[in-house]
């Protein structure tokens, strides 16, 4: 063990611990900007510099390993003075002006610069911002880049490369001209971006945000002639209360419904309903393909970031993907057929809105094969902004129920929101579909949790043990694909583009206080608590899904079901 003192407090740490980690052990907060848990050390912002053994040269706490006998001062007069001036420089590089100001910024409530300002007690600003005049990148359906707000901390570069295994971003130019951009400045919409939005989560400023659909949704809501319905994804309910001050993982399903009703939606439905439906379609497909030994393993298809990833990087495996549309698109397809017909709504007047934890869902809804079934996609963040703008605090509302037709769901659908959930839900029903019996123990624990790659073997009957895998985060997806290519045998594999699954989606609220792992864990706990508290926990038990098959689709995998609920993919390769 290494012994040192930080601000006169003795600390004992393992060898290899950085000064930043050591300080956190004794609850001393050192401000950072370019540092992010789970990313490589960059050592660029220098905000975390500390005084070591009274040396003149200050050391970056994020990149300096603790050594025996070190005397570290994290907030000495000199360190504080340097930090203040450095922060002035950073603010000046952030181009704050009339056009770019904190009040209109997408990150007005979750800006890390603002947190740092508070942490270091900045009380002066002597420098003029030097306007850089860079163009916005509006090429993507999902994500907007505003380079003038970028402070070049390179967290998005590292996130995309290290956590997602892609690397669409890079630095270009030099010195003060250094910018973050895409290959040949092509724009995010024209490179191998999966639209996952993880870069947004990592950005400390408002330089990256989703393509907003809020204004269009407001317009639709204000238009008397329009019939506007909305669906809410499983992972939204455990995060929507966060922007209103609640802890991550707070379950606010009923309050979300109540808020949306107040906003004026004409029908409030649950993507969970189509998640149950997805299990019926995908589960049936898995059972068929496994018994026919056809294109195994079956790969899940509900994460649109993952879909774009496989289209770019493993187009030869597109035949392995389940043909089932994602729950969002199944909902869209049914809304514009089953719902419109049942309710007698003219398609001209029907507007279908989604609330998703996801930025890639915006791209998905614009895929040509999806035929504009979903008109607008709001992220959890956008939904929260709209609710706030309507003068509503979600935490104050009494819970209300979803509308009936497509609002009923089982616990299996709730867990779609977290890594391993689709797999668990599918296994619960696959067992039933094959054996005609119910699983005795429906909690399938090996596929749960934040481990990046998970594997399980589930005995179904004497002849069949299903081998399943789960990967979340695209660098794990890459590892899983390499394992499959190397001949590891699976029947069914779940892929989610975002770490943690949808609970960690690129459209989720950004927590300035908690680390990402803590936030994910709490949201995950929230999701499983919903599942375990429900009476119906297996998709095939959903009475409204059963009704839908009886009255409209026939049976899972029927011709009509195929027409509405299944899709095809585009081999994109590399540009």
């Amino acid at each position, binding site marked *: 063990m290494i012994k040192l003192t930080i601000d006169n407090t003795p600390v004992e740490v393992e060898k290899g611990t950085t000064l930043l980690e050591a300080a956190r052990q004794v609850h001393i907060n050192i401000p950072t900007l370019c540092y992010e848990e789970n990313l490589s050390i960059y050592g660029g912002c*220098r905000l975390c510099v500390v005084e070591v053994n009274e040396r*003149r040269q200050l050391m970056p706490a994020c990149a300096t390993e603790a050594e025996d006998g070190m005397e570290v001062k994290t907030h000495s007069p000199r360190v504080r*003075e340097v930090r203040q001036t450095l922060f002035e420089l950073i603010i000046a590089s952030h181009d704050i002006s009339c056009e770019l100001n904190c009040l209109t910024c997408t990150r007005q409530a979750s800006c890390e610069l603002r947190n740092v300002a508070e942490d270091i007690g900045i009380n002066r600003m002597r420098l003029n911002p*030097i306007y850089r005049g860079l163009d916005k990148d509006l090429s993507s359906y999902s994500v907007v880049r505003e380079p003038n707000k970028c*402070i070049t901390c390179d967290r998005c570069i590292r996130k995309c490369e290290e956590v997602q295994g892609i690397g669409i971003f890079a630095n270009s130019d030099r010195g003060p001209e*250094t910018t973050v951009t895409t290959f040949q400045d092509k724009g995010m919409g024209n490179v191998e971006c999966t639209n996952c939005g993880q870069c947004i989560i990592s950005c400390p400023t408002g330089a990256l945000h989703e393509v907003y659909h809020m204004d269009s949704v407001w317009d639709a809501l204000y238009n008397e002639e329009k019939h506007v319905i909305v669906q809410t994804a499983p992972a939204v309910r455990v995060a929507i209360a966060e922007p209103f001050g609640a802890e991550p993982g707070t379950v606010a399903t009923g309050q979300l419904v109540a808020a949306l009703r107040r906003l004026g939606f004409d029908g409030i439905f649950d993507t969970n309903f189509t998640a149950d439906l997805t299990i019926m379609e995908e589960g049936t497909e898995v059972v068929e393909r496994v018994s026919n030994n056809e294109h195994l393993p079956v790969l899940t298809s509900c994460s649109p970031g993952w879909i774009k990833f496989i289209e770019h990087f493993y187009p030869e495996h597109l035949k392995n993907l389940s043909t089932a549309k994602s729950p969002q698109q199944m909902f869209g397809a049914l809304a514009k057929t089953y719902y419109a017909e049942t309710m007698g709504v003219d398609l001209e007047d029907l507007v279908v809105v989604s609330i998703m934890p996801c930025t890639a869902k915006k791209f998905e809804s614009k895929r040509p094969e999806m035929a504009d079934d979903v008109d607008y996609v709001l992220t959890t963040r956008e939904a929260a902004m709209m609710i706030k703008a309507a003068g509503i605090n979600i935490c104050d509302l009494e819970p209300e129920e979803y509308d009936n037709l497509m609002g009923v769901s089982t616990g299996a659908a709730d867990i779609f929101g977290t890594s391993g959930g689709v797999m668990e839900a599918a296994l619960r029903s696959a067992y039933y579909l094959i054996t005609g019996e119910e699983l005795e123990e429906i909690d399938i624990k090996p596929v749960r949790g934040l481990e990046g790659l998970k594997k399980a073997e589930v005995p179904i009957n004497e002849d069949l043990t299903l081998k399943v895998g789960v990967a979340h985060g695209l660098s794990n997806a890459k590892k899983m694909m390499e394992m499959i290519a190397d001949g590891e045998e699976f029947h069914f594999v779940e892929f989610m583009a975002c770490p943690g699954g949808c609970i960690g989606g690129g459209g989720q609220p950004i927590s300035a206080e908690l680390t990402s792992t803590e936030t994910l864990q709490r949201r995950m706990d929230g999701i499983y608590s919903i599942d375990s508290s429900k009476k119906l926990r297996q998709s095939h038990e959903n009475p409204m899904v059963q009704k839908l098959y009886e009255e409209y689709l026939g049976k899972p995998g029927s011709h009509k079901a195929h027409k509405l609920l299944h899709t095809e993919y585009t081999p994109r390769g590399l540009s």
Partner: protein
Amino acid sequence: MVKERKFLKGPRLRDVSTYEFPGLKKALSLGPDRIIQQISDARLLGRGGAGFPTGTKWDLALQQQGERKYMICNADEGEPGTFKDRYLLEERPLKVLEGLMIGAYAVGATQGYIYIRGEYSEPIKIVREILEDAREEGILGEDIFGSGFDFDIKLVRGAGAYVCGDETSLINSIEGKRGISRIKPPYPIQEGLYGHPTVVNNVESLACAAEIIKQGAGEFAALGTDNSRGTKLISLSGDINISEVFEIEFGSCTLSEIIENLGGGVRRGRDPKFVIPGGLSTAALLPEELDCTYTYEGIESAGSSLGSGAIIVVGESRDLVDILLKVSRFYMDETCGTCFPCREGNKQINYMLSQHRNKKFSGQEVELIEDIGEVIAAAARCGLGQTSLSLINSIFNKFPEELIEEVIHVD
């Protein structure tokens, strides 16, 4: 009267076929430990500017375990006012080659690199030819001089970035990456080029090493002072009558003697306005501060540093604001852009200076410039940043009447 002491300088030495490589041959018979002992005994300090003991560097590299090691000659001579490596590359390149090979043999490197700044087209041509000739003559390749030592050298042409003179940036550049510094540790000795132990030495350091092995450590250590052994190549330039590379024995003269005797005095005038003693990254010295002896310690006691040995003389007629602006422009253009203090600090300084042509600076402005200077010096990631405001700050300190508005106190 100051005279040159020629330890490194000498007649043109570029013909591989006639050169005997006496230092290298001797080194091959000495073996790594005794070579490093010689370099350490000579107390040679790195001549690139930072002054790290060369013997220690080689010793650390020798002790590193690794399947392969690299030896790199840093010929990215970019410090403004410095052109002494160019002299060696053009006139005595075989000594540089020899030093590089001795170092490689001593530390156990099998592949070498010479990284030359892109603008040095003539040295690049010369070194390229020499490397070809050396391969033909069997000086490079396998089993050199029958010793069992295998070694070859690649020539890499820099793309013009000043920061690539920093060893970690230089290594990134060779690897084809952006020329930006790396976080240390790990030091290049531990994990350098392609992750292998790597020694990076300045051109002059290597030429010194070749001479030390040939002539013996005692010969070199007998020159100079306790803390500054041997000789130093200086690049004398600016408002001076004779601008050239000279070789000075440490401690044999003062800065003002160098300017008067070797440089033939200040052009069109008696006294300079100030002198930059070690390249653009070192603090300015006033005429009355030039009586310090030319040693590391002598110039430090005068309040600056010896740096790369570039002595730039600035005449009385020069406009200070113009100089400040040009210096800051240089650092703004050359900061790599990785760390915030250097990138944003140098940009802001340049912006502030460019707003104030032909005007004096207010006390608040000077305070701000000093504050930014302190942030850069204390918190920048590499040597480029840390020293980027040394000169500008020293000019403000030394010419307050000319640059700073007088504060009028009203009682």
